């Protein structure tokens, strides 16, 4: 950390123009980046908002407050919340075990954590649907307990939890690794219990990372489509997620309605992204003592 600080400082003192002159390629890389971002990201996104704005407020409001659509907001938000809460607990456990303990198979456990990011969502979807089906490996035992997962909102939670597993693990892991052991060891040697030290010393250092990971997992779950539709059952008012709702409107050739709902989803996604960025900025400053 000290070395990066030293290297950043003289660069800041130089004027922006002076640094630009040292390394080549400013114009070229700025040009390519701006061209690409405008064409691939900004043009299509502004297209959506202009479409949605063009339909008039009353119709827009009518479409986005349709009872079936409102039900899908609720299902999606609640399932995403449940999935990210699960991942906060599971992610903290996994990060802890992977950082603090040595045991055979640890590397494998660490590597498999990223599977949900690498596995296509449609594959995850049919796999989870098969596992939790009535006669599936998990479904048959859960049925004995009276728990139905496939084709219920619980299935949506399972799919969302699966696809966003890596977020909390991967945000907490580096923080836990860099945590200085002094406070913890001092407290332990003074006779505090494990639980007390965890609550008073470790958790205060870890929770911003848990929240960041949880928020990322929530944002991802809100938009999840491929993994969810195979296991959800997709019955109107009960187990339709918002992405599916947009898809249904598209299949009805109702482009204005699809655009309006998509504009709502897009706005929420962008606000979440902004909030996570601001939160991370603050939290990182605190980490580096700024």
């Amino acid at each position: 950390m000290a070395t990066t600080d030293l290297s950043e400082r003289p660069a800041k003192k130089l004027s922006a123009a002076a640094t630009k002159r040292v390394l080549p390629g400013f114009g070229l890389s700025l040009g390519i980046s701006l061209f690409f971002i405008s064409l691939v990201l900004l043009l299509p996104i502004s297209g959506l908002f202009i479409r949605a704005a063009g339909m008039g407020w009353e119709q827009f409001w009518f479409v986005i407050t349709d009872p079936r659509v409102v039900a899908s907001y609720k299902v999606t938000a609640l399932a995403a919340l449940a999935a990210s809460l699960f991942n906060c607990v599971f992610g903290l456990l996994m990060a802890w075990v992977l950082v603090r303990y040595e045991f055979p198979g640890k590397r494998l456990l660490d590597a498999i954590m990223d599977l949900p990011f690498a596995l296509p969502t449609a594959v995850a979807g049919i796999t989870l649907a098969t596992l939790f089906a009535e006669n599936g490996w998990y479904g048959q035992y859960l049925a004995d307990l009276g728990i139905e997962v496939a084709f219920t909102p619980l299935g949506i939670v399972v799919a969302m939890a699966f696809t966003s597993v890596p977020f909390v693990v991967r945000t907490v892991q580096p923080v836990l690794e860099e945590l200085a052991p002094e406070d913890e060891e001092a407290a332990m040697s003074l006779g505090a219990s494990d639980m007390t030290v965890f609550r008073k010393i470790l958790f205060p250092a870890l929770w911003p990372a848990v929240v960041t990971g949880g928020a990322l997992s929530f944002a991802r779950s809100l938009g999840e489509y491929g993994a969810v539709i195979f296991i959800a059952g997709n019955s109107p008012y009960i187990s339709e997620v918002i992405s599916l709702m947009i898809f249904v409107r598209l299949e009805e050739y109702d482009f204005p309605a699809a655009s309006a709902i998509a504009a709502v989803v897009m706005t929420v996604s962008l606000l979440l992204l902004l909030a996570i960025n601001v939160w991370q900025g603050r939290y990182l400053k605190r980490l580096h003592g700024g």
Partner: protein
Amino acid sequence: MKTRKHRRVGDSPLVRRTLIGLAVTLTVLLLFMPLVLIFVQAFTEGWAGYVSNILDEYTLHAIGLTLVVALLTVPLNLVFGVFLAWLVTRFRFPGRKLLATLIDIPFAVSPVVAGLLFLLLYGSNGWVGQWLGEYDIQLMFSWPGIVMVTVFVTCPFVARELIPLMQQQGREEEEAGVVLGASGWQLFRRVTLPNIRWALLYGVILTNARAVGEFGAVSVVSGNIRGETNTLPLQVELLYQDYNTAGAFAASSLLAGIALITLVVKAIVEWRQSRN
């Protein structure tokens, strides 16, 4: 170090064993078993059944189309990712932070919304689509549309892998190269590339994994024409809906194989970086 002498939280054997046991059990149930299930299901009809499922006319076509999409998407995003990473880590200019945030948008956007964005703009009644229609160019419901949405969905990965690493490495080495008279290309090839090659490799592999596996965005713009615009994930969906479970999982096993290769490459890259 004396750390062995100091007790730390969770050191007692009981806590240690309980937590490791819990972590391993949950990971096996949540991540390992799904992976096992894919291959078990793929081989329910034996090796011969598996091969004939893969060699199915439409599945083969889907594999071919998926490869074409990846071959077009990955190099494009590789070039863009490297230029963007160079820009935001090597220069200071107003709007630098904003640019680094904009690139995260595809992560936050639902894939279905991503597909819709392109359908609205380039579809037959979109602004650009109408104009292209006059020249008989149709991008949506054909392979160019699939490539376009895949580029959108996968554009952050290379830059996201490179930016933290290049930030951490700083620009002294490159500045020294300039002083010694290196040209831009020489600088990149001789100084920057050797430092970032492993992260770059992982970025490319991850871009590839997401490009071959994209489902939601592609299904909006593909039109699902069997043997024409079906990519491998769409073919998995079709087979599954046709109650051809073995066929669906055979096609899935190829995608799961790519996912496993991605994980192995990541493990190698991390091992390499930790050695440095």
